[in-house]
């Protein structure tokens, strides 16, 4: 079966922000098919390796299957915390986008399913 490399941005969305010197990420699938791929591919080790060239901190991960999401914490990511960080993005809010650059390998059939399954809407919109 043919496999493809895709950035997480194809099948997921994310939010991030500061927790002292850690950045806390929520990585959300749009549907269950997408969540299965995230759960299988996006481990703490993969996230750590992804950020290592820039922010080589420890990563912890938690699965939140009830909301089709994974949570990650990247330690030592903010130069000691938001109020001493010299970056323009001192609170790490843009780092969710950086997480969505992470590439995973999936089969074409899996990608197809994740893209074509209707999105789950938690607030009553567009539920199939």
């Amino acid at each position, binding site marked *: 079966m043919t496999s493809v490399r895709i950035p997480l941005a194809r099948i997921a969305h994310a939010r991030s922000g500061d927790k*002292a010197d850690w950045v806390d990420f929520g990585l959300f699938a749009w549907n269950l098919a997408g969540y299965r791929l995230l759960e299988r591919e996006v481990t703490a080790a993969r996230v750590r390796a992804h950020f290592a060239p820039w922010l080589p901190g420890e990563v912890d991960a938690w699965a939140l299957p009830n909301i089709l999401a994974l949570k990650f914490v990247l330690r030592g990511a903010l130069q000691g915390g938001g*109020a001493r960080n010299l970056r*323009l*993005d001192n609170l790490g809010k843009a780092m969710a*986008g*950086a997480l969505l650059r992470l590439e995973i390998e999936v089969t074409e059939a899996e990608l197809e399913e994740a893209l074509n399954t209707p999105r789950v809407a938690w607030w009553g919109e567009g539920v199939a």
Partner: protein
Amino acid sequence: MIIAADVGGTKTLLQLLERTDGGARALFERRYADAAFGGFDELLTRFLADARAQAIGSGDIETAVLGVAGPVDGDRVRLTGARGQAPGPMLKVVAGYRDGFKAEVTWGFSWPDAWDKAQAATATIRQLLQDKRIPHDELFVEYPGLNSAHGALAPLPDAAALNAMNEVWTRLVLRTPEKSAADGFGRLFPWLALSGPAYTCGFNGLHNTSELLGIWPTLIARALVEPGVKVDFLGDKA
């Protein structure tokens, strides 16, 4: 004014009353779940604050009548029915501490060769910091529009493509333990505007020192904190 309370094992009902000719008239009434409070004093404080928030009860309290549904033993009353867990031994603390100063300058360089100009200007600033022995921990450099969001994870075009760009913005931030070094950082730049690589605009860095705060999340024994807790109301004097 009078406080009347019906204190139960799970809930407490409080009233604030004022005397009338025939007896008393209730001005304010609230019911609270006991589990949300560490003790009756906390609960009473909250009740008075809630009353005050509605501009009720500015007069002195002359009497308090507390009905407690349980057997009395000396000055203690045993209540039953409360559920929950005892509070943990530790409290979470997020402490801030002073941790140096920063000063920053952001400027833009224009085509042609904007990238090379930005590099040359930054190298000059680094050299000046060294020559003038300005104490600093780091000179942080990023390029808004290119990598300020994703740092080293944002792929940069090659140098030729960068030099072909219309403009390149550079943000330089000095981290230093000394305020005077931060105050003087902006003074490294004006002459460069005249004699260095041609810059576009955006330079406004003469006086922008700010203090940096480190953050220390930790735990502290509850027993060290709670005996010293004092609650001040920001009332009429605020």
